């Protein structure tokens, strides 16, 4: 139990820039990321044996379900009628698609698979997007009463402030730091820095969370090629090994949890991933965590064991999560600056780790990065997925 039946590695990654792509369709976004990943892996599409796609809500945003077949078709994979599967777990759709693909390859069913994540959010106006994003929370007992997704995280933020002394400035430090990182990422939605003053005094969305406490709506796609280690070593000089993978769940509604300043799903998923990898939080050099809101990053770095409960905001203020400090958190810019095309986010996180572990991250390179962790949640933490990657 708690082990993969065989070693699995990532050999290729590809991503579109995240942002508002008025001129690109969902299909075109998927093609661009998919082809980049196959090109990076140096393989032709005829080698692909299965396809996994993480998408949260193509049905609401585009009135189109069954996007697994659509993506298989547009990247030319229907010729061999390969299995094509869509995975949905709100904002964790991408990370969970990666988790499922790992289980597939580790089982021996397939040797080479492509995992993609995509979302097209800009076709609807912003308050409609607010409503669609809220469908990742409990519609009957939260949404119907007027709770938006940011408001549920605001409830966590206010409680965290009350119980642990976290401040509005601590939240702002998360956003400022992630924008510093995003400015070094050519595929990020926002490649510019922001000031503390801008972050603290931004228009309120759900008090105490302002505009700069919230990740944006984005269009985008990310993709990767995953295979068994034997094949990986034949095809690649620098395969990145999956050391551990874990998934956890919790109630859909916040009101059905005893504790709202910690996510049990994250704690459980990370415990499973750490155990499989045989490492602990202190071994992680670089982490991509799910900062859908600034408070989410603070809660995540506590739940993942990087800092003790209540110290997440203070640690961020001390600069311990900045590039090449104690632990580099979100060198890509995170959801805040890289952008957050729901289903694509979990794959973009894995791709950033792969780029970091290969040593190809340029200005945002984490020194001596040899092991990294990705953390992806759905809704308010009803699903959490944690993956740990390492240099072979």
């Amino acid at each position, binding site marked *: 139990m708690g082990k993969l039946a065989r070693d699995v590695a990532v050999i290729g990654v590809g991503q579109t820039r995240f942002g508002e792509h008025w001129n690109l369709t969902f299909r075109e976004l998927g093609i661009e990321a998919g082809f980049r990943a196959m090109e990076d892996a140096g393989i032709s599409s005829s080698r692909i044996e299965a396809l996994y796609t993480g998408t949260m809500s193509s049905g609401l945003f585009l009135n189109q379900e069954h996007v697994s077949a659509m993506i298989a078709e547009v990247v030319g994979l229907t010729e061999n009628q390969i299995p094509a599967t869509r995975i949905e777990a709100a904002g964790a759709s991408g990370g969970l698609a990666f988790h499922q693909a790992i289980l597939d390859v580790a089982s021996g069913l397939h040797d080479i698979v492509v995992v993609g994540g995509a979302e097209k959010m800009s076709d609807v106006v912003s308050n409609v997007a607010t409503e669609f994003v809220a469908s990742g929370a409990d519609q*009957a007992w939260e949404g119907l*009463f007027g709770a938006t997704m940011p408001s549920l995280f605001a409830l966590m*933020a206010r409680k965290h402030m009350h119980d642990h002394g976290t401040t509005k400035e601590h939240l702002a430090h998360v956003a400022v730091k992630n924008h510093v990182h995003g400015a070094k990422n050519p595929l990020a939605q926002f490649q510019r820095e922001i000031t503390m003053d801008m972050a603290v005094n931004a228009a309120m969305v759900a008090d105490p969370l302002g505009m700069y406490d919230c990740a944006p709506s984005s269009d985008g796609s990310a993709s990767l090629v995953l295979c068994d280690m034997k094949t990986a070593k034949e095809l690649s000089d620098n395969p990145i090994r999956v050391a551990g993978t874990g998934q956890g769940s919790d109630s859909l509604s916040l009101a059905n949890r005893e504790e709202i300043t910690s996510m049990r799903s994250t704690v459980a998923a990370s415990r499973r991933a750490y155990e499989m990898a045989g490492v602990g939080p202190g071994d992680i050099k670089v982490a991509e965590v799910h900062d859908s809101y600034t408070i989410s990053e603070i809660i995540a770095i506590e739940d993942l064991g990087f800092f003790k409960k209540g110290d997440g905001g203070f640690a961020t203020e001390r600069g311990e999560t900045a590039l090449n400090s104690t632990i580099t958190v979100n060198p890509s810019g995170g959801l805040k600056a890289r952008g957050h095309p729901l289903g694509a986010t979990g794959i973009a996180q894995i791709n950033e780790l792969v780029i970091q572990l290969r040593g190809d991250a340029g200005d945002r390179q984490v020194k001596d990065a040899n092991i990294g962790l990705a953390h992806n949640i759905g809704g308010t933490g009803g699903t959490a997925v944690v993956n740990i990657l390492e240099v072979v």
Partner: protein
Amino acid sequence: MAVARHWRNQDQRYNLAGTHCKVCGGHFFPKTSMCPTCHRRSMGKLERFQFSGNGTISSYTIIHDGMPQYSSQVPYVIAYIDLEEGDHIIGQIVDCEPSEVEIGKGVEMVFRKLSEEGRSGTIQYGFKFRLTM
């Protein structure tokens, strides 16, 4: 949203009806067909329970960017409330200025119109809360 989906939840939304587990004594909102503590042992041992509607604010937020069907009500307050008999609930705090809302303050349930006509094409009614002091 289909009308039946709302009608089915009316006892809970109008009367704050939840579930009492006769095995462990726990009270749960919304209704549940299995006690989260007792699991199978609670089969046949669950009964309807009407919460008093009294509780305490555990956390709250003032929403400025609201759901489309609530956009005429911004800014409005949503709170995470500890119910007197146990369990928690998320609901709006009304009949006060947002600045009067604080963690630790007592609340009681009131019955109100929830929102304007949304995508369901119907107006919804249900519980909200107001400060008791």
